[in-house]
């Protein structure tokens, strides 16, 4: 009887150890998947954020915030859901940053000695601080074409910029883009088509 109890006890221990081992393996696999996913999107996400906020440090902060938020809040979700969620978080960060910049610009606008740009808008004094972004040589490397694309993109309405960046530059499909933008697939198609059409007109035959 005692030997039977001992055997049962051993069997239970083995089952518990197996369960712990399986859980650990699953966790490790998810960590690896998350690392791989983030490594795959981090650079392009940075460039997209940089194009939107025109500041590398701000863009890095936005990307870092998006990574952390995804990992903490959605790390346990299936990896297939990560991409649209990540870009939704990223664009929320971009919008927050743009909002903060506008508020800062308005606050500084009350002080005397502020400058106005050619459009009559008050210039953000922080724009005059030495640019921490890519230096001129890097800009040359990135190419004139990229500068033109950035300029043309910046002139598009925000939703068209978003649709174009996600569909064309990040390669999300229509459904993923709709999830990231929190709108219908029809809206995505409309925004994307209009963006592409306008870019074609503005960039002309240079491309």
């Amino acid at each position, binding site marked *: 009887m005692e030997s039977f109890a001992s055997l049962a006890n051993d069997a239970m221990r083995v089952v518990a150890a197996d369960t712990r081992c399986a859980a650990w393996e699953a966790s490790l696999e998810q960590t690896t998947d998350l690392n791989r996913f983030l490594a795959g999107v981090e650079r392009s996400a*940075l460039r997209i954020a940089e194009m939107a906020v025109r500041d590398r440090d701000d863009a890095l902060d936005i990307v*870092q915030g998006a990574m952390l938020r995804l*990992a903490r809040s959605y790390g346990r979700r299936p990896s297939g859901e990560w991409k649209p969620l990540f870009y939704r978080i990223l664009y929320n960060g971009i919008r927050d940053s743009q909002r903060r910049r506008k508020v800062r610009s308005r606050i500084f606008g009350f002080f005397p000695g502020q400058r106005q740009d050619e459009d009559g808008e008050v210039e953000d004094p922080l724009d005059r601080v030495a640019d921490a972004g890519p230096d001129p040589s890097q800009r040359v490397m990135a190419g004139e074409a990229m500068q033109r694309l950035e300029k043309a993109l910046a002139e598009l309405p925000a939703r068209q910029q978003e649709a174009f960046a996600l569909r*064309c*530059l990040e390669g999300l499909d229509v459904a993923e883009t709709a999830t990231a933008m929190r709108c219908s697939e029809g809206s995505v198609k409309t925004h994307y088509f209009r963006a592409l059409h306008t*870019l074609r007109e503005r*960039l002309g035959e240079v491309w």
Partner: protein
Amino acid sequence: MKEQDDRLERTRRRAREVFDASVESLDTETRARLSRARFEAVEAADHARSFGWRTWVPAAAVAATVIVAVAIWRMPESAESPVAVAAPGDTTLDAVEMLADGEALDLVENDLAFYDWLEVTGLDASESAG
């Protein structure tokens, strides 16, 4: 129409090429900062996975405390009901009532004659039974 589609497709392809080239040209310092940010995020995910259940413990403790407090608070109300529905002449309930009645208890304590009577009647009863 087809020509326009082709032109749009060329624009799309060219934009993608230019963008990919700019991504590839990111300097090493920026790449390193991105890697650090990624490791932090992955660590945060591990931490959240390992200790996620612990965040529920305080909430569960608070919920349990509230439930117990409400149960205790409601108890006198629910304890009244058995007395109210008890049949008249229930000796157990009579005894409880008598014990709860402080005045009656004082009377019993002060009246030594009562004890004498109780002793005598108790003996008489046992003798007559025997």
